[in-house]
């Protein structure tokens, strides 16, 4: 799971520093990842065979309390990959380092969100599956595990596919798969006692450089988009008038 600036805040870029203005913007659990956590918990409950759910997050240690929230939902334990050396990682480096951290702990099934609300590349699940060397079942809107196989309904633009693969595997979970639960009071209390293990880059035996130095892309420029000004506001006298005003406008813009 990833920590991101709050989805509902109207974020802005400081024109001088060209960085996101963080003050007043809370850091939260990436909303897309909540679906993955919920799907993991439901699988665990359904299997009821001693399977456990581990949260893995690459984030600064300051994000510990947000990771604890996932534990309060019911996850068994958590691993945080926290290292200053990872600052400035791109998607490539994030997938590479996370894969090493996940391999270290061992796994049958890796669940991810489909994208994050900040970078929003949607590239992590595929890259992670490749580094882990396992099948990637992306955009799962329904997931089940039985007899050593994972089966998903994979969303497509016009419907879905039923896709299955042997474990170990990776699946990215969509919003339709699971409505995230709220942590119970018992869960919140219990989470305080659960372990959050810290991993450093040195623990991972990586062979390629990570962080800003290892990144495969370099930020050259960060600009604010052209400002979108307030347009016209007209009140329709009736349906015909309202429609006609739109038609005239579309013609004026050569859209019709």
């Amino acid at each position, binding site marked *: 799971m990833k920590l991101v600036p709050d989805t509902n805040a109207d974020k802005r870029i400081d024109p001088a520093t060209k960085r996101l203005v963080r003050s007043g913007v809370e850091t939260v659990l990436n909303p897309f990842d909540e679906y993955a956590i919920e799907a993991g918990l439901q699988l665990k409950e359904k299997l009821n065979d001693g399977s456990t759910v581990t949260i893995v997050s690459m984030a600064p240690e300051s994000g510990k309390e947000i990771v604890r929230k996932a534990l309060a939902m019911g996850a068994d334990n958590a691993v945080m990959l926290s290292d200053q050396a990872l600052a400035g990682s791109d998607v490539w480096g994030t997938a590479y380092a996370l894969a090493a951290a996940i391999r270290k702990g061992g796994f049958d099934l890796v669940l991810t969100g489909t994208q994050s609300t900040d970078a*929003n*590349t949607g590239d992590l*699940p595929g890259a992670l599956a490749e*580094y882990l060397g396992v*099948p990637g079942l992306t955009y799962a809107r329904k997931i089940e595990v039985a007899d050593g196989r994972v089966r998903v309904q994979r969303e497509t633009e016009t*419907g879905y596919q039923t896709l299955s693969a042997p474990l170990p595997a990776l699946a990215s979970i969509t919003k339709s798969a699971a409505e995230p639960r709220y942590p119970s009071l018992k869960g919140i209390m219990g989470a305080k006692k659960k372990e959050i293990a810290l991993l450093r880059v040195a623990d991972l035996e990586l062979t390629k450089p990570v962080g800003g130095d290892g990144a495969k*892309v370099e930020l*050259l420029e*960060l600009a*604010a988009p052209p400002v979108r000004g307030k347009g016209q506001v007209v009140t329709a006298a009736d349906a015909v008038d309202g429609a006609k005003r739109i038609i005239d406008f579309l013609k004026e813009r050569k859209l019709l």
Partner: protein
Amino acid sequence: MKNVIAFIEHKNGQARRVSLEAASAARTVADLLGGTAHAVIVGGDAAAVAAQLAAYPLDAIHVLADATTDKLIDPAVDALSVVAGAAGPSLILVGNTMIGRDVGSRFAARVDAGLNADVTEIRVDAGRVACVSPKLGGLSITTCAFKSDYGVAAIRPNVFAAKPGAGQAEIVAIAPLGKTYASVVEDEVEEVAPELGVEEASVVVSGGRGMGGPEPFKTILKDLADALGGAVGASRAAVDAGWISHGHQVGQTGKTVSPQLYIAVGISGAIQHKVGMRTSQTIVAINKDGGVPIGEFADLLVVGDAFAIVPELAKQVRDAKAVHA
């Protein structure tokens, strides 16, 4: 990187529009780099799709015509790797779509390539390739250069033009991969008539909380979208209420779109929706309330009864088009 390779998605024997845009961009960027432009097509219909791509100014179209690879990501990545390996350091263009992102990201991990997603412009400066992408829902525009030998750019649909032109591409068969894959597609179900998704459509007609129920999405909004040749979108409120499926959702936890025309019906324009559509070229809103936030950034806000205006608008659009026909 010197050469450019476009990965072509296709369905029912037809290349997706974003893939034609990728093929066209491949030519443009290859010329700037002084290299060659390629396309890679995988699947049972690959030969038919190659015939369609022949109308584009590429140097080579690489074809793996094998129906057993249909619908799977892994063989597409394998085929792309074969072509990229032979081409040497190159830029790979995929659509910023569900399949394009999967193929692009897996390929990138395989060859340690840099990734740029949701690309709206590709620049070449002294042989170095950089990609422009809106981030944080269009709040900032980043330009990122590749530092790696290979690079993957997932291009945003509808931004690059599809430009057919003197096609002289050589059709090259990719040797059978001779691999078996662990993933199995057991079946595929079409739930909606094959139509453009909101990400690819040049016109999007979206409905929000103001629609009051599922019906308008199937009737008046669908009809207006049809009249304009567009797709139906929705706000989170409408999706959360179960009025329309998540695939239609525009906004922070849905799709990001930038059509030529975005029509927001009964949508207030909260930040969560705004970040998914503010890069649309033209925004028209219809709302019963003149004080909604969308009025602050829509090019035109018509205040009135959407249930009456939308059907009338569909009719007037058809009338206007009939005059041109």
